[in-house]
């Protein structure tokens, strides 16, 4: 059992990061996916996570969304612990009730959209605000329509997902996540399941978000050019640890570590 | 179970064991009939003649959609109406065999449909006769996916044998009724019959699941 007293109950002081991974470990049985990871994301920062499969990059996002349990260390969001809660002056693993409250400030978009098929685009967006935030119907609708306009899907608001293309569905999924007014947005390979010609629709929306909002964002993607364009920082993961990180121009333009160079040249060759 | 009498239970146990053999025999024979007749029904629905296909289809649907117990009565009583006297056993076997052949024909139909179209085309290309095509190429491939359904219906037929008691077939339910009626004690007979059924059908169902998994592994996750 880890000694939890080494972790603060709360992050205080100036410059508290929006997201902090502190000594985070995740393993599946004998397989360690994340290895004592330390990662900070500042408020409003857009961080892209890249790396080969099995490097742990998707796990980072999934743990932030509390879809996976933590095996070591603590994750903090906006200064408060996400994966743990304070009890008698010490951090203990969070119970489901605390988790549900804590993760409400995180929003996530998935590779396979996961829109609710039995609801229209508008109803998908209204579902969270109404059922979870308790907003009255007209307020939820107003918010949802605003977001659907922003992602360019307002004229399809009464369509079911089965009638929408992949790019359109993903844009609705982004609007749905934003409707919950999260502090942190996670994008898990949101263009990997799309046909090439519609990838631009989705990256365009994310671009808009970065430009017009101060949302903290973490993105896992294979779209290197796009990542280079809009990220504040890029992290290259290898075997559960951050191999190298930095501003996009320096990481992509002048990678220092050998593994980073190997990965980037392999990706370029595949383009 | 405050009124359970162990001495009574042990006293009547031998009669159940004898009746159980009858039950198993009934299930076995009925299933044997159903397996063969079911194949006939399934193949009959694949003939080029539309009339035969439709008539057989409707007959199968009719048998599948109506209660077995009613069919048992029908077969048992209709015979004498036209001069044919059927023993309860024979009438029961015919009824159960027919009823389950309808179910099995659906299982076979699924299995036959799952054989890739290319197999049929290969047989045509090799100029195999229809009989050879079916028995040497198609049916062997239709069999593995059908085995799960066939296994389930074997357990099902065993559980339906009590219905034969209504026309006097000397199986487990009949024995329980008889004992209950003559001793005026129903607790032990009915409970023991229930336990005997559980003791046979649960392991049987388990075995079928194991067999199904083994089959799937053997065929490479087919």
């Amino acid at each position, binding site marked *: 059992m880890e000694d939890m007293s080494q972790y603060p109950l709360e992050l205080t002081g100036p410059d508290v990061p929006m997201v902090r991974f502190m000594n985070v470990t995740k393993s599946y049985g004998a397989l360690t996916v994340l290895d004592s990871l330390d990662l900070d994301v500042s408020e409003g920062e857009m961080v892209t996570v890249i790396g080969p499969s099995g490097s742990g990059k998707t796990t980072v996002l999934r743990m932030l969304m509390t*879809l996976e349990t933590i095996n070591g260390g603590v994750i903090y969001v906006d200064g408060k612990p996400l994966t743990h809660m304070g009890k008698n002056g010490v951090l203990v693993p969070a119970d489901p009730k605390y988790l549900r409250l804590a993760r409400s400030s995180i929003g996530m978009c998935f590779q396979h959209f996961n829109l609710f098929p039995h609801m*229209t685009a508008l109803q998908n967006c209204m579902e*969270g605000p109404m059922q979870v935030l308790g907003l009255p119907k007209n307020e939820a609708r107003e918010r949802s329509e605003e977001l659907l306009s922003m992602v360019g899907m307002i004229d399809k608001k009464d369509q*079911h997902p089965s009638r929408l293309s992949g790019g359109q569905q993903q844009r609705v999924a982004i609007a749905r996540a934003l409707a919950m007014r999260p502090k942190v947005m996670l994008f898990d390979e949101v263009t990997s399941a799309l046909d090439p010609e519609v990838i631009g629709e989705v990256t365009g929306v994310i671009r808009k978000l970065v430009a017009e909002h101060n949302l903290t964002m973490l993105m896992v993607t294979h779209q290197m050019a796009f990542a280079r364009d809009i990220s504040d920082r890029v992290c290259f993961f290898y075997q559960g640890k951050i191999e190298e990180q930095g501003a996009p121009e320096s990481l992509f333009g002048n990678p220092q570590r050998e593994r980073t160079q190997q990965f980037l040249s392999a990706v370029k060759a595949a383009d | 179970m405050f*009124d359970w009498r162990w001495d009574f239970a042990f006293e009547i146990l031998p009669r159940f064991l004898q009746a159980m053999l009858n039950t198993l025999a009934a299930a076995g024979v009925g299933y044997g009939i159903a397996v063969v007749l079911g194949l006939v029904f399934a193949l009959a629905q694949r003939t080029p003649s539309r009339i035969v296909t439709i008539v057989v289809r409707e007959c199968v649907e009719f048998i599948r959609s*109506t209660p077995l117990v009613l069919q048992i009565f029908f077969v048992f*009583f209709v015979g004498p109406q036209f001069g044919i006297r059927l023993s309860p056993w024979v009438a029961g076997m015919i009824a159960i065999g027919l009823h389950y052949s309808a179910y099995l024909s659906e299982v076979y139909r699924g299995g036959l449909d799952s054989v890739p179209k290319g197999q049929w085309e290969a047989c045509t290309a090799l100029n195999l006769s229809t009989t050879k095509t079916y028995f040497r190429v198609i049916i062997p491939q239709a069999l593995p996916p059908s085995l799960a359904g066939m296994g389930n219906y074997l357990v099902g037929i065993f559980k339906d044998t009590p219905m034969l008691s209504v026309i006097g077939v000397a199986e487990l339910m009949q024995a329980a009724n008889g004992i209950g009626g003559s001793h005026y004690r129903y607790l032990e007979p009915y409970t023991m019959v229930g336990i005997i059924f*559980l003791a046979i059908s649960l392991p049987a169902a388990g075995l079928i699941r194991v067999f199904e998994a083994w089959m799937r592994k053997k065929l490479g996750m087919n």
Partner: protein
Amino acid sequence: MSYWEFLAQNAPRYLDGTLVTIAQFFLSATLAILVALTAGLMKMSRNAAVRWTAGTYIEIFRGTSLLIQLYWIFFVLPLFGLTLDKFYAGFVAVGLNLGAYGAELVRGGIQSVPKGQWEAAYAISMSPAKRMYRIILPQAFLNMLPPWGNLMIELLKATALVSLISVTDLMFEAKQINGSTFLSAQAFGTALIIYYIFARLIVTPFMRWLERVMARKMGRA
């Protein structure tokens, strides 16, 4: 006498029996659905005791004959203090028996909802209850409908067994008519036809219609 004379003479009794069968059908079906939902959800619980309870119920009622269960409920339960009138014993037995099969269908339907749906509902912080009720069950319901259609037919056929504890349903009347007229082919044949009409021309088309309506609601018209 001709078949038409036979029908005319016995129509009232067939009608009475049919009405009782319909009542038994709806009552058993309602009970079966409630039981199936409960047991199916219980079987997916994280609590081992809850899972085990549902599992035991399902295995017992699926592993023994409906006829045995029917007799047990009607003849043996009174010894434990619970005496049910035969009409109630009838649909309770049928409902409990088919509910056990239905529980597996419920479980299968829920498990066939893609994992991504659970994760999406989780990601917008839905409570487990809301998630099940608003997101998972509606999708599971559509997945379950085809096998439930078959189960409803089995339920209709199962109601015929209640005649053996003297509930005056269609099967019971057919036996009575056979006993008085000795025209077995007509007596039982007519009953068979009535069951067939119900199964093929009423229950099955209704279930197919329900499937179409639900598919349209899911935007999968």
